[in-house]
């Protein structure tokens, strides 16, 4: 039988990359959502700001985050490569093509949905990630009375203080950190941004309802017993719970002001 090309130069190998990076990004979403639920705590953003510091300074998490950025890039680049290849496979299109008769809309428009998500990721990261890493957010000091658990927060004057400290001083826990929470509150005053976030989460839902189960099909895992479970998780967790959870954040800040 013929010689065959190396794994990654085949169409199947490229799909394997899409599948693995896609699933990795899915697991990230779970962690990101659970972490960000701290935005809903009624504590002037203390837990959230503390968490933001941890996520950006704990080495293993930093390593994983670089893996994550790489995965996003690879997923997008391979999507482009595969799409160009697939377009070439049909140079002359049909005058009439009834895709809706045989397949779901989102399964045929993963590239479009993915593009919306890519624009979203760039917007999202420049709003928060970039600002956080480039000292474009203010600092805040929390004093928590360890006996009564009451917390008072004071904004620190710009330029007067930088860095992160957490210590106990005479029954008071003092935390000084970057106030990303404030940036979140501020950003979500803008209804255009809020609307874009909600739309992007809609795109995320449709992207993952197809993407999650599709990733397993590509890996070759289609099993009478497990495929329905995968489909269930794809629809309810990745298609409903996660997008709604994320969309709730901008809506919460917009309407609570």
């Amino acid at each position: 039988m013929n010689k065959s090309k190396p794994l990654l130069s085949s169409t199947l190998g490229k799909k394997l990359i899409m599948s693995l990076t896609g699933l990795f990004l899915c697991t990230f979403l779970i962690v990101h959502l659970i972490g960000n639920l701290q935005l809903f705590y009624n504590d002037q953003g203390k837990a959230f700001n503390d968490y933001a510091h941890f996520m950006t300074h704990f080495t293993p998490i930093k390593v994983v985050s670089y893996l994550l950025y790489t995965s996003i890039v690879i997923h997008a680049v391979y999507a482009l490569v595969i799409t160009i290849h697939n377009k070439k496979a049909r140079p002359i299109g049909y005058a009439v093509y009834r895709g809706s008769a045989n397949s779901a809309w989102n399964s045929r428009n993963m590239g479009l949905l993915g593009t919306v998500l890519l624009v979203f990721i760039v917007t999202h990261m420049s709003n928060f990630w970039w600002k956080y890493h480039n000292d474009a957010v203010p600092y805040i000091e929390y004093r928590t009375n360890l006996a009564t658990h009451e917390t008072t927060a004071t904004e620190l004057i710009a330029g007067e203080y930088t860095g992160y400290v957490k210590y106990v001083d005479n029954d008071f826990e003092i935390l000084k950190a970057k106030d990303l929470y404030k940036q979140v509150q501020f950003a979500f005053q803008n209804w255009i941004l809020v609307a874009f976030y909600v739309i992007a989460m809609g795109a995320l839902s449709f992207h993952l309802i197809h993407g999650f189960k599709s990733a397993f099909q590509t890996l070759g895992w289609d099993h009478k017993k497990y495929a329905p479970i995968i489909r269930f998780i794809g629809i309810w967790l990745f298609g409903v719970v996660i997008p709604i959870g994320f969309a709730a954040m901008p809506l919460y800040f917009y309407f609570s002001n």
Partner: protein
Amino acid sequence: MSGNMNLTLKVWRQKNNKTRGKFVTYNANGISPDMSFLEMLDVVNEDLVRKGEDPIHFDHDCREGICGMCSLHINGRPHGPNQLTTTCQLHMRSFHDGQTIVIEPWRAAAFPVIKDLAVDRTAFDRIQQAGGYVNVNTGGVPDANSIPIPKAVSDEAFESATCIGCGACVAACKNSSAMLFVSAKVSQYALLPQGQTERYSRAQAMVNQMDAEGFGSCTNTGACEAECPVGIKLTNIARLNREYFTAKLFKEEEVH
């Protein structure tokens, strides 16, 4: 002849692979609802021949749904509006009087148009020749139960083997992917004892040929399964992925 239909056909006409094609409109009058779609085209062609015009070229052979030769993309779907049906088994009662029917050839770079609606599907033959066979001598008909194989497995292999190589999966797929066809052909051997010797070389060789022919890659839309006239299932594609990745990643001695 009551109940007969008058139809408007928009047919893709193309002289050969070198020239550009275009749609030409024909009237098909007095069509019986009991005719097959191909018989309807025969009627139109007889009329064209009588007028001294070039008849519409389309593929067909058995006209009983078993050879896979008939094709045609009809009103936006391969083999027309019905499920599990080849064009030769599609009857005109699936259409209504006065309807306009758009008829196009399979569209794929790997299936170049020969003339009008007939396309060259020898890419499938070359994929089959790359690995869709067994080299071992399987001998005569064995005694019953002498080859141990569970019924569920042999049924699955048989179902995969029902693929008639029509190419509707490629035609339906937005990526012109041939994965359903290739997966059916790989599965029919991968599941049976006779196919084991070349199991992993086969998956690699056939995928390699599939890529070389310029088919697109599968994005799991499921359009192929929905349009396949014999009901080849998507689970075959999962199996092909499994066979191929196993070969490439875990069968060092078989990678070539």
